[in-house]
């Protein structure tokens, strides 16, 4: 066991943590903003938008990855714009891995936040309005704090999803060791190389993180104040 641990390449772990953290950050911002608009907004096409926002959950990850590849690939407008700005392609980079993980995980944060914000009793917001608070302050000092537990549970789920993404990431970021090879891809890679010991250690680490995320979710979903 110690031999296996000593021989393991830890690069996928650090890469995964960096990619998942950045992706979760993006998922949090987009998820909360989208959730607020869907929960409190009244506009035509809201239902359609809501369904669209949840699509990444039910689509096969490789299909999601395929669409993303088409959108940010070297011949797409986004890919070309990126290339003219940075001098290199966007696909098959760590940045592409972050985008893939963010796309796959945002719906988890959004759905949880959407439910939590919908549950916030309007009377709190009305009371704050009567007390003289601006709409902006009401969002940040009333609505979101009251919904915080649901939102935090969503963020934990998003992190777990971002850390575990395989299909979407491999489609747009590939399997470049030390550059885009995240943990789940490394597990697959090790199994292909018949290195079951390393695959097992990596699988165990991912499993522990997943269980921790679920514990966090359960904690936030329990008793409120």
């Amino acid at each position: 066991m110690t031999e296996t641990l000593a021989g393991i390449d830890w690069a996928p772990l650090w890469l995964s943590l960096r990619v998942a953290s950045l992706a979760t950050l993006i998922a949090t911002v987009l998820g909360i903003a989208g959730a607020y608009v869907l929960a409190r907004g009244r506009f035509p096409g809201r239902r359609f938008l809501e369904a669209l926002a949840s699509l990444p959950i039910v689509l096969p990850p490789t299909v999601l990855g395929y669409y993303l590849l088409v959108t940010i690939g070297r011949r797409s407008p986004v890919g070309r714009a990126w290339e003219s700005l940075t001098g290199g392609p966007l696909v098959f980079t760590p940045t592409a891995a972050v985008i893939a993980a963010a796309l796959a995980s945002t719906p988890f944060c959004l759905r949880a936040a959407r439910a939590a914000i919908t549950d916030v009793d309007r009377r709190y917001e009305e009371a704050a309005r009567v007390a003289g608070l601006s709409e902006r302050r009401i969002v940040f000092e009333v609505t979101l704090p009251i919904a915080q537990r649901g939102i935090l549970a969503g963020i934990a789920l998003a992190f777990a999803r971002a850390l575990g993404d395989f299909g979407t990431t491999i489609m747009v970021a590939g399997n470049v060791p030390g550059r885009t090879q995240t943990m789940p891809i490394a597990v697959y890679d090790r199994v292909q190389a018949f290195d079951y010991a390393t695959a097992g250690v990596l699988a165990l680490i991912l499993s522990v993180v997943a269980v921790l995320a679920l514990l966090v979710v359960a904690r936030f979903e329990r008793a409120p104040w």
Partner: protein
Amino acid sequence: MSLEVRVQRSVGGFDLDVDLRSDALVTVLIGPSGGGKTSTLRAIAGLDPSGRQHVVVGGWVVAGGGGPDLPTRARRLGMVTQASTLLPHRSVLRNVALAVREGDRPTRDAEARTWLERVGATAWAERRPSALSGGQQQRVALARALAGGPRLLLLDEPFSALDAPSRTALRGLVLRLAEETATPVLLVTHDPTEALTMAGHLAVIEDGRITQQGSASEVAARPRSRWVAELVGLNLLRGVADGTLVRLDGGGELRTADAAHGPVAVTVHPRAVSVHRIRPGGSPRNVLTGEVADLDARGDHVRVRITGPVPLVAEVTPQAVAELDLGAGGTVHLAVKATELQVHPDEAA
């Protein structure tokens, strides 16, 4: 101090058409649920902006003055509702500080502390609202409502979820603070005793319309409809209690079943007042004597107004009017059981 409210709006088949005017410190809006009490309050607060509104508080036009209506946050109102709307994630102090409109954080916190002191909530400043009882939460809500320096305090059944002692204490507190800060109050309630004992001006709202308004004693003594009579057509007497004996302000005494001390308001339903030509004896009753002033026939019953040291209204059947020849006027004896008298600490005293 004056309040002028005209609201016209129609939502889902319900028409609200309210015209309320009051110069009293405490205006009470009473009516059955679904009658439009809360809708009126929400319209004043600008929370339901549709329809036509004209709201003037102490000469300050909040809505309907020709220009655009002020948004809710600029109307300078305080509101306390039946269900607590204190923010669950903030301490009591931070909840009150939220409503203080001017100054930096330390200034606002200091201002909030003075309000907590005025409602007797200093000891709970650092607690979360969920750690407080219902009555304590309403005290804090009152502090928050007043901390913004409102020009009008809107109270939507703020006492109805409380136990009797907390309710009495909070009513007294509301009246005291309203007076000290010269803040007019508009109280919505469905409790007739609360309405009669607190109202400077009483307005009855039914089916979206104000059906009667005036001083509490006016409305109680001369209810304009059967419904108003049922709701607030109670005899209201004020006096000072010493145990189960109440010395009435206008002279005379009443025996009550419940003991109390100090200024009290006693209410009794006209149906519980029986009218006799010959003085009834025996049982532990209050017997009062007076003159028949007038009769007011209302279908299956007649309201008899009796003047004397203790003015009362009695409700009797048309048969009783005939048997006792009440139409001829003259002296009558009124009997009221001690158990029919409801004694309330008099917050207005």
